[in-house]
């Protein structure tokens, strides 16, 4: 045991000299459970202005009217930071948030106790490495309706519904935003203040902000990777906020 600890100490020294101190040290410490672990969670709450999103219900947004029929998106690579330094990164971090399954709003974490942080960072969508790595299970299973069959790749963000201004059939709109290939990568990264303890807390996903950016008369649908998907995806980081 003693010898084992000495080896561990030597390893730490080696890592420090490597200059990869922080992240590896954290990994090392958590792997050895020197600190107690705790379970906690963060919820992502889709809202339309002040009201929680309910599918198939009509909402007034500014001087416009919308109905949302489908709302699904991926969150990936979730990490928490304190003063700009990562204090906790979730491993294998891929989550499908689906308005049809409100249980998916809550993301559970298992991490060392007494973590403090002031920011949260995550991607909206799926990184390019995962996009080219073949078929996946769980939230990434292609049966989830978030994978393009005709041209490989994940849909990062899917929003379908109705708006009277839409020029498409039945005044509907469909936005399937995705694409991982350069120069049309639609993946966006969100980094927002999140000054919380490890308790059940929530992040607002303000759909009204996204809906206000739409022009359903000129562009009622985006369903493939490309410039239009990239442009509209740039709105996504602005829809997340913590109280």
């Amino acid at each position, binding site marked *: 045991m003693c010898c084992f600890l000495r080896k561990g100490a030597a390893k730490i020294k080696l890592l420090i000299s490597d200059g990869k101190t922080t992240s590896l040290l954290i990994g090392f410490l958590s792997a050895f459970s020197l600190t107690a672990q705790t379970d906690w969670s963060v919820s992502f709450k889709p809202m339309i202005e002040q009201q929680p999103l309910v599918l198939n219900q009509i909402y007034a947004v500014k001087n416009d009217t919308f109905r949302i029929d489908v709302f699904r998106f991926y969150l990936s690579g979730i990490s928490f930071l304190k003063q700009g330094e990562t204090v906790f990164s979730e491993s294998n971090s891929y989550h499908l948030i689906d308005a049809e399954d409100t249980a998916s709003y809550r993301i559970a974490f298992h991490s060392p106790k007494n973590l403090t942080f002031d920011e949260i960072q995550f991607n909206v969508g799926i990184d390019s490495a995962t996009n080219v*790595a*073949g078929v996946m299970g769980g939230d990434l299973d292609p*049966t989830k309706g978030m994978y393009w069959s005709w041209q*490989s790749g994940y849909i990062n963000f899917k929003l379908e519904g109705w708006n009277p201004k839409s020029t498409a059939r039945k005044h509907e709109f469909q936005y399937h935003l995705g694409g991982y290939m350069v120069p049309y990568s639609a993946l966006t990264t969100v980094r927002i203040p999140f000054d919380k303890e490890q308790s059940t807390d929530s992040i607002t996903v303000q759909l009204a902000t996204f809906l206000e950016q739409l022009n359903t008369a000129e562009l009622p649908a985006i369903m493939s990777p490309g410039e239009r998907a990239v442009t509209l995806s740039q709105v996504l980081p602005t829809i997340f906020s913590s109280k």
Partner: protein
Amino acid sequence: MIHRFYLILLLIFVGFAMMKPDKNPVIHVPKGWPKPTYDFKKNPLNEATIELGRQLFYDPVLSRNDQVSCASCHLQQTAFTHIDHALSHGIDDRIGNRNSPALVNLAWGKIFMWDGAVNHLDVQALAPIENHLEMDEKIANVVLKLQASKTYRGRFFNAFGDSTVTGERTLKSISQFLLTLVSTNSKYDQVMRKEKGIQFSESEQKGYVLFKKHCAACHTEPLFTNGLFENNGLKPDSTLNDIGRMGVTHRSSDSLKFKVPTLRNIERSPPYMHDGRFRNLQMVLFHYSNGIHASPTLSPQLKNTIALNEQEKGCVIAFLKTLTDTEFLMNPKYGYPK
């Protein structure tokens, strides 16, 4: 005490003997071939999963009306292509946009479909399953149909240790079967391996020399494809307006480029080209010697005319026929499951 020691030793020995022997199948990589591209660590082959994949490949349950299977457009005896159809047809006699490609040596494939729209073998089957001209089904519904079948629950149990059907498992099983479709025993292979009593005829040998000079830059040995996208000088068909690779990358430099197909078993897989416009190899050779349509993205290999007389063309075709692997085309392991 000593007795107890021997007893424990015996128990350990029996324990090891009862462990399942590790006899996972592996695909055969001939000497001198590149390493397969497929990452077998993420989907290790095993007999039960390969068999499940074969069942799925031959089962029309993958289609909306339970009438079209993978094998409908990929017949073993014709090198897993759709013979006699320029454009392959799918569900309700709907005609597709391209000629179905041969399925062979897929473990070495980097990117799939004529335009490279599919980036990994594991997600390849999704495209025909969900294409409304091909099988017109949804993978989520395929999973429901399989889960409802007692036979399939049993097969999934055999393959994965429990009977849960998922999209991931379904597709990985199909991959496993496809990965076993390895063709390495054509006459060409036997000649290269210097097998006793096997040699090229005079015209095959002459054809091989001409092939290396004029064709091998793209149809590189031993896979007979460089895996890249090229514009091989086909005049665009105005009834299809197929821009090929550019449809995926949106880059004009990729206009009219299509994936270089393997030539293995080429004798058995007419018609030829992405739109099946050539019915036989004579027409293909005529295209390369006399029919190149110039355009900005034309492959540099084709900028100078390939001058071949009729006798030389005959030799090239004789060589191409040495790429036919009868053992592969007749192997019952790849055929309709009994």
